[in-house]
């Protein structure tokens, strides 16, 4: 492979990570507040279809993205109502919505399937884009990819450096303690679930208006992305930068699947396309194995120095979910 092809490939990895980043960071915000939105997979499909349809009908890309965000926010609102107000299991509600939204996307998107539609253009940044290597890699993207870079930093800054952001983490960690510090826990949880849903909902139109432009129904190749988004949220340990590493890693795997295809003629292309999905999910094994009892048991037999080192690695990999994730809050209980 020439170095140019490599560079363009890596640049493509960065831009094809954008939708995943929006999904993961939206979900991270929601889960930090204590609500896991498992509807992600159907939600991305529905907002991809809806965003494309809105853009097709109005000719406006901006309205397409807005529609996607609105769909994400609506789905998240259903999750919030069912789990915060009605105290139903977030897993159950999320799963049903994941199935429902997927079928809704296919049903409603039937008439616009395969239609040519608008697509977001690249906006290379003047001067910066002509820097060798870095210019191609970082500064020849569309506006959404630039936004995804910004989103990583902004969400980190919000959660680590601002007071409402620290409170957001408090909601998912110990809602009672957040309450005595003046937070209206359930109202804020509504807010962050819906906001997280809106951010994640942008993932759909990013696909259908940019990364994989168009709506092709069941062969859009988007089914499954939402589950990857959820597993990267876990892999990312609910921290923006680590989540970004996960998202880029997944896109890199997907790209490598394409690159390796000609080198491995015996493996059907379908297999290489699917392979990054299980790989990404199995990284969760690394994140969780430190908590397993048998690991601690076998570690306790090792000599002190080795034990320390292994424990350090496991602790670094380990990701602890927000303590009150999935638990409803009622101040009177």
């Amino acid at each position: 492979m020439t170095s140019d092809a490599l560079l363009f490939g890596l640049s493509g990895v960065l831009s094809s990570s954008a939708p995943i980043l929006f999904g993961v960071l939206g979900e991270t915000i929601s889960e930090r507040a204590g609500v896991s939105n498992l509807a992600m997979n159907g939600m991305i499909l529905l907002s991809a279809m809806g965003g494309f349809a809105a853009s097709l009908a109005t000719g406006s890309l901006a309205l397409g993205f807005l529609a996607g965000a609105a769909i994400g926010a609506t789905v998240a609102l259903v999750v919030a109502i069912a789990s915060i107000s009605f105290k139903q299991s977030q897993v159950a509600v999320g799963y049903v919505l994941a199935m429902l939204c997927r079928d809704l996307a296919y049903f409603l998107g039937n008439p616009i399937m395969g239609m040519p539609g608008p697509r977001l253009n690249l906006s290379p940044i003047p001067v910066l884009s002509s820097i060798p290597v870095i210019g191609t890699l970082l500064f020849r993207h569309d506006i959404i990819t630039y936004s995804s870079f910004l989103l990583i930093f902004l969400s980190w800054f919000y959660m680590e450096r601002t007071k409402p952001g620290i409170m957001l983490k408090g909601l998912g960690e110990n809602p009672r303690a957040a309450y005595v510090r003046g937070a209206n826990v359930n109202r804020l949880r509504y807010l962050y679930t819906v906001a997280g849903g809106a951010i994640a909902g942008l993932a759909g139109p990013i696909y259908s208006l940019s990364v994989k432009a168009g709506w092709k129904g069941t062969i859009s190749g988007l089914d499954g992305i939402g589950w990857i988004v959820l597993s990267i949220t876990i892999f990312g340990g609910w921290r923006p930068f680590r989540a970004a590493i996960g998202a880029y890693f997944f896109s890199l795997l997907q790209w490598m699947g394409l690159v390796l295809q000609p080198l491995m003629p015996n493996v059907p292309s379908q297999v290489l396309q699917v392979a990054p999905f299980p790989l990404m999910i199995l990284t969760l094994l690394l994140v969780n194995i430190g908590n397993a009892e048998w690991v601690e048991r076998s570690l306790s037999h090792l000599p002190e120095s080795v034990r320390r080192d292994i424990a350090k690695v496991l602790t670094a990999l380990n990701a602890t979910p927000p303590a009150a994730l999935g638990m409803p809050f009622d101040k009177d209980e």
Partner: protein
Amino acid sequence: MPFRETAMRDDKKTRIIFGLGSVLAALALTTAIVAATGNNPLQAYGNIIQGAIGSPNVAANVLVSWVPLALATAGLLFTFTGGLWNIGIEGQITLGAIFCTWAMRSLQDTALSPGIIIAFAIAAGMLGGIFWALLAGALKTFGGVNEIFGGLGLNFVATALNLWLIFGPWKRPGVASMSGTLPFEPELWMPTVSAQSRLALIPLALAVLALVIAFILLRGSHFGLRLKAVGKNPKAAYLLGIPTWQHMLLSFALCGAFAGLAGAVQVSAVYHRLIPSISSGYGYTGLMVAMLVNFSPVFAGPVALFFAALSVGSIQLPIVLKLDSSLAGVIQGFLVLFVLIGNGLRLKLLGRKRGSI
């Protein structure tokens, strides 16, 4: 504490009213959505009903579709009782189909009688399902990977494996295609009720048996009670002396056996070959059925039948009305969603009436 008379009580009547309300809400919303797309909802429903019970042939197809769905649901009742979300069931069905195909391919040229070959193949399918379910269970119990994500990962692996077999080692002579492997000889097909029908009685009987087994084990056996305890509070169950992870793995294995059976039935009685989407989403739909019946073995059968009728009935929609057949999934999704929300609403209203004690 003396029970105070309140306007609403948590009795059968309230439950039925809320259940009916949820169903009506789901129907109303689906109707509105169909109407919004510029179609006539009544025509669409009529078409679905026609497609499900319009002729003996389609009605038989509903039963054909009911068998894997009922098997999957029966299996899921065990994992749900054990507090587990076995989303990996889809892959377990696929592995059942793969193992079944493998057994058929290995045995078809031997001197064994077709009946024995089919029996072996079915058993192999169940083993395949068990194997895949135990993998998800091991990831959960020994690797700390949530069974939802472990299961999804294994589903993707199962899909990849299936595709690889169809396009690789088991491809049709000549060119591999999405239509699957070469069909088996007709004498290796499971006997159907008539030459034209796809309905075979043995799988039907097996599915009924699966539901009966689930009912008996979960309602009255020590195993069922212990599994329930593990599902509700594994730490306490362990201190009470119940082998916790063993029960979890056992429930995975039982579910995998039924799922594998479903996959084997699809290969040996329905498609007579391995196809790329052999599991057809029956596992995912089974999860919806189990949730809708609130994990009760009694209602699982009828509700699975209703879901199967919806799915089969909507197959004709694209041809007749240019509507996507995913309308069935939309109705199913709204049903489960509104039943969940209705349940929550009922408990909330009851709680408020009762006051905090």
